[in-house]
């Protein structure tokens, strides 16, 4: 029984060239991250400190949210609370309606993706323009991000060139990234100049000062918010951190982990509304508070959405973001999906080889692989465990529990090396799908041990 992820991954790898490009490009980003980390002697301590600040903040989240909202109100911002996606969308629409906004310019926000804000607003007659280049490309194509930091990583330049020819009057067959980016710059500049309101997400909310911090490379969040009188921030409850001192830890980790840059180009601190304008902050729960007291999974709330766990994941790199059924892919997405609805999103659990690489790169030490492992142990509860694999597990348990039988099986195992493929890779061997069996050693370790033979390692 293949999971939905396995089936979708099969489609992705059918295009060998694209799969290889995707794999290698993301690995390059991972390597850039490594180079950055190696330049900081205290990197590991920094991760530890980040982890502890998050542990503290998540435990005390109620206090910090109170502190954040009253500080923000003191600064002149208007704070709203949304328990779920629906309420979030209604609040945003109400604000826009009050200000008679026709065009809203947005910078990247995974939270608004989560709430499906764009279709909601468009349905109500508001023009919504995504301004992050990758997001804009996808919006014009009618698609959604396949990576949380590099949303259009699955798109080839030729596809973007074709799209721009059609939508932005770019030269025919010119797919040079510099040319296309500058065409988009011109085109989006017009949108910035004619927008009535700007919306951003939040990388961090600072409890002590009530300010919102947004990190971008393009400067799109700032273009929007410095031209429009109305700024709406959409922020998940887990984005709050205690103070600027804590922020220094996260700003050192975020860009280095995400793209291998020492810092994003812009780290913008929004404290007060623009002269003569308004700043609204919508604080969103949408299932997060439930996770806070779930001891096994609360660490997921530490996530700063850097995407490093995706770049390092061998399954993500080779299967692409669209092969996951939750809107956030990769190790972080597998877990977020399970916390949203285990029944609906358990297919993604198969997209993990338990290599633990994600745990090792995560800047805030979210125990991603442990959580995936834990979910797998509970698959039965959602009636999702593969029956053939369960049957085989039972068989293995029996063999492992009977030493004499185990010995006998081991002796004959090398025979498999000589069996015809159809006998080994058949429908009953669920693990044989998409996997190659390692060759069995001619002699088992046990028999060599007994004979007292010297083991040589030929590496």
């Amino acid at each position, binding site marked *: 029984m293949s999971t939905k992820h396995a089936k979708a991954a099969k489609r992705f790898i059918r295009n060998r060239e694209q799969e290889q490009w995707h794999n290698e490009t993301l690995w390059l980003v991972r390597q850039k991250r490594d180079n950055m980390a190696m330049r900081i002697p205290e990197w590991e301590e920094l991760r530890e400190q980040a982890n502890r600040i998050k542990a503290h903040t998540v435990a005390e989240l109620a206090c910090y949210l109170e502190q954040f909202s009253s500080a923000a109100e003191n600064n002149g911002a208007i704070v709203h609370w949304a328990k779920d996606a629906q309420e979030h969308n209604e609040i945003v629409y109400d604000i826009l309606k009050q200000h008679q906004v026709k065009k809203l310019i947005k910078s990247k926000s995974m939270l608004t993706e989560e709430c499906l804000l764009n279709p909601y607003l468009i349905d109500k007659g508001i023009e919504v323009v995504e301004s992050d280049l*990758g997001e804009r490309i996808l919006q014009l194509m009618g698609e959604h991000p396949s990576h949380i930091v590099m949303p259009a990583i699955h798109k080839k330049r030729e596809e973007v060139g074709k799209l721009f020819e059609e939508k932005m009057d770019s030269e025919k067959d010119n797919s040079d990234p510099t040319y296309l980016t500058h065409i988009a710059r011109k085109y989006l500049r017009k949108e910035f100049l004619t927008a009535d309101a700007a919306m951003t997400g939040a990388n961090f909310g600072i409890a002590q000062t009530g300010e919102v911090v947004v990190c971008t490379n393009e*400067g799109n969040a700032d273009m929007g918010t410095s031209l429009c009188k109305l700024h709406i921030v959409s922020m998940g409850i887990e984005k709050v951190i205690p103070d600027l001192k804590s922020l220094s830890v996260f700003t050192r980790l975020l860009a280095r982990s995400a793209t291998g*840059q020492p*810092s994003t180009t812009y780290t913008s601190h929004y404290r007060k509304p623009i002269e003569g304008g308004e700043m609204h902050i919508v604080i969103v*729960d949408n299932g997060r508070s439930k996770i*806070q007291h779930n001891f096994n999974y609360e660490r997921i709330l530490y996530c700063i959405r850097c995407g490093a766990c995706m770049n390092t994941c061998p399954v993500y790199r080779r299967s692409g973001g669209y092969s996951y059924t939750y809107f956030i892919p990769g190790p972080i997405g597998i877990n977020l999906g399970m916390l949203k609805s285990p029944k609906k999103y358990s297919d993604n659990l198969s997209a993990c080889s338990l290599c633990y690489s994600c745990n090792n790169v995560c800047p805030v030490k979210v125990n991603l692989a442990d959580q995936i492992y834990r979910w797998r142990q509970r698959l039965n509860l959602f009636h999702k465990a593969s029956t053939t694999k369960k049957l085989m597990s039972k068989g293995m348990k029996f063999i492992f529990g009977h030493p004499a039988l185990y010995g006998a099986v081991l002796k004959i195992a090398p025979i498999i090396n000589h069996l015809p493929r159809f006998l080994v890779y058949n429908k009953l061997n669920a693990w044989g799908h998409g996997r190659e069996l390692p060759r069995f050693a001619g002699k088992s370790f046990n028999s060599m041990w007994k004979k007292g033979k010297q083991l040589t390692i030929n590496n």
Partner: protein
Amino acid sequence: MSSKNDIIKNLNPHYSWTLKLADIKTVEAVKFDNPVAEFLEISRFVGGDAVLLNEGEDVNALIKTLYPDAVRIASNLPEITIASFNPDETDDPHNLNDVELAIVKGELGVAENGCVWIPQNVRQKALYFISENLVIILDKNKIVNNMHEAYERVAGNDYGFGVFISGPSKTADIEQALVIGAHGAKSVRVIIN
């Protein structure tokens, strides 16, 4: 209001083993023998192209050589004589769309990443992003080692808006190819004096 209560209520009770913020060990962060030299190097790496103003060199003359063709030049700094207008007299930030060069002051430089802290010091913050090119003037005595030191200095200050800028606007959203000049300034030069 009721949603706020629901959310806050959901988050209680706190864990009894809560770790105190004050008890979390602060890391001993990297320091440089020569932060100014480090800043210059890393700034070049991130495209901030920092230059050191030599003793006796005129900042206006230097900017002129860097941007010989710029005509519409915005600055509210008294020492900048080559400015063609004072942007603080502009009521509507949209009118700044044709600015070719903006010259502003940075308050703090960070050696580990080439960032310069600018608490809003012009009337229209759009100026930092909308102009084609941006020059940031920075005092060499205001360069700190790392972000910890930077935020130590930023904390306690009153600003409505502030931004760390570390180079020109950029993107790699098309096939991960790095392109300079996404939405903000196409070039950023930090002049250290």
